[in-house]
């Protein structure tokens, strides 16, 4: 897994490559929390994520919970059909807004 986190116009952009599972979830979580600071608007680009395990989905949900307590939200971009299906069957999808591109997601924050 590879993560890049950038901040622009008060939006935190997280781009992930690879799989998020119990091996990488802990690292991802601490990495995000470290960079998140007081920002509460997150766009997470999952274009290059091929698998999200149960632990991976929990990192996303943790982020959602963290942000929703201070009025923010996390938008997911380019979630693959398979991951979308898994998120739907396991209920995680109800917590997120999904968008087809970063541009589309950015519009939600304007």
């Amino acid at each position, binding site marked *: 897994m590879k993560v890049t986190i950038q901040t622009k116009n008060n939006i935190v952009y997280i781009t992930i490559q690879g799989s998020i599972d119990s091996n990488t979830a802990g690292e991802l979580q601490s990495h995000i929390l470290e960079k998140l600071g007081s920002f509460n608007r997150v766009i997470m680009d999952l274009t290059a994520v091929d698998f999200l*395990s149960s632990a991976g989905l*929990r990192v996303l949900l943790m982020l959602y919970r963290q942000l929703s307590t201070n009025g923010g939200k996390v938008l997911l971009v380019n979630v693959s059909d398979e991951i979308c299906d898994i998120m739907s*069957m396991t*209920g*995680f999808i109800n*917590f997120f807004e999904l968008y087809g591109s970063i541009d589309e997601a950015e519009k939600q924050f304007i």
Partner: protein
Amino acid sequence: MTTLDNRIDFYPTNEYQGIKYRRGRVLPFGATLVPNGVNFSVFSSAATSCTLVLFNKNEEDPYAEIPLPDEFRVGNVYAIIVFGLDYENIEYGYRMEGPHDPQNGHRFNRDIVLSDPYAKAIGGRDTWRDISGLNRNYPFRSRLVFDDFDWEEDNPLETPMEDLIIYEIHVRGFTSHPSSGVRHRGTFAAIREKIPYLLELGINCVELMPIYEFDEFEHSHENPDTGDLLVNYWGYSTLNFFAPKAGYAATGKYGMAVDELKTLIKELHRNGIEVILDVVFNHTAEGDHRGPTISFRGIDNKTYYMLTPDGYYFNFSGTGNTLNCNHPVVRNMVLDCLRYWTSEYHIDGFRFDLASILGRAQDGSPLNNPPLLESLAHDPILAKCKLIAEAWDAGGLYQVGVFPAYGRWAEWNGKYRDTVRKFLKGEHNTVGQLSQCMQGSPEMYLHRGTTAGINFITCHDGFTLYDLFAYNEKHNEANGENNQDGCNDNFSWNCGWEGETDDLAVNLLRHRQIKNALTILMLSQGVPMILMGDEMGRTQYGNNNTYCHDSSLNWLDWSLVQKNFDLLSFARHIINFRRQHPILRNKEHYSNRDYKESGYADITFHGTKAWHADWSESTTVFAFMLDGHHAKNGFVKDDTIYVAANMHWDALDFELPQLSENRKWHLSVNTSMMPPETFYPLNSEPALENQSGFIVGGRSVIVLIGK
């Protein structure tokens, strides 16, 4: 570093083959995620040592075996915290050392890696009927699960018992048929897709046939005639009481069955539908002394099973062994398990398979005051749960009407089933019994109220409702036991032809009988239960014991929605009728008195002559009237309802009781009529032209409302 990270027990004290660990906590039993590691705790009364065995998923051999130092044992409980585990990708088990002395009840064997009786998930059958796991050395390995599901505002619904309408579902059977049109057939996720159907049907509770992990390949064999593989389809053979059946989850192969099941329950609750689990605590999948050793037998045989004096297995379940339910340790396990499902999965109630076994002592004798049943009834966490007993066992105990209830327990009312079936086929000498059934069986449950009885005419075990009127005899040849298995007392009637026929008159009569049956069920006091598919005429072609068929014999064919739409629309109407009329859902029994001074007693009985019920032996007609002033035991006002059932072959003229207060009789249901005149939607029921009499067709039921 937060203060929590400072606890010294978050860090290891020992190391063995590169794995770091320390002394664990004895409670809770099972494997629990703790900071930096996993706490493992297991009980055995007679083991002399315990080794924790760790596997990587998908690897045949363990990657580590950690013998627990004796100082990690407290009493008879072994506990260890292991650090740095990849909790999504490990599997675990135990080797227990101890005497192999069957005569004295001990069957330890350190060659076998045993699954944890408290495991929250079991690997090995992640995808239904996937044969890749069949030849593994240790097929059923324990796994770790997350217990942090986000339920948001969800809680068990606590629907009053008298308002429940239960729908019995087999998870695979409900959506496995190609006609189901769902994305992932035969799964928890697929049931979610069918919620709109359930809502339209009108039920408010689903009872799921066993969803604890079981092995569908147990005793599997080919049918010699057809070559079909016969499997353990029903699943009444538990491998582990805390683990959901992974193969029932579309995400089972990703290890997410727990989340998928919880999501289903949350979604059902959001739609006002409760979830009852059919639970099997009377035996396990380990069989008798010839069966496999998977868990309990190797962990602590003498504690978990009822043993004969010479160390063999009592067989009150008919499956080889009997769980030792009233042993204090096993009792606690059952309690822990139900508390877990109630609190972690938000389950609304439990139906206990062969529950009479739960009332037997360790030597098998029936107890007067069974501690397990009493504990469950008074448990603080289970306090609002529905507890439903199948009040008999395979050892000859039959407790319908006398099951130790402690003011809580309800029972599957087997007498209701038999009586209604006999009445519907026109047997004599049934009307007296039928009147009891329609009142919620006060002859059995006088002091327990109407909700002590779950009324049903069919369930998974036996004929479907359609087959009840299409077969005189069972046809179980496909089970491969020469038609010797399955019940012989079906009280069924084929309406003139055995099996499928093109004869229009026979088919019309069958449909009418199904409508008669559904009407009687929905207009009885007590808690009605419908078998999945009966509302659309599902057939098992006369097979009354389909436990082994993973095929279209058991899968609900959704094309029946169109084919038998008259049945489905009728079922929707009569279920909705029950929900709209509180008089049908009294919690206390009728008193046969007019305590509201309305001019009518709460219930009155009639025959072809009003006010004159015919209780003679040869009668096949029965009519009764419920006075609307006495709805919900007099606290609510409803319409008055009159029901006449004529199981004589020919039409009969029924004199109607006269209504007071300028009210008129209106027609809701007449099963002798063809659609669209079989029933009238709520609030558009036509007033009868003749208010003093009604000709009820042969083998038909009418429902009138007085308003």
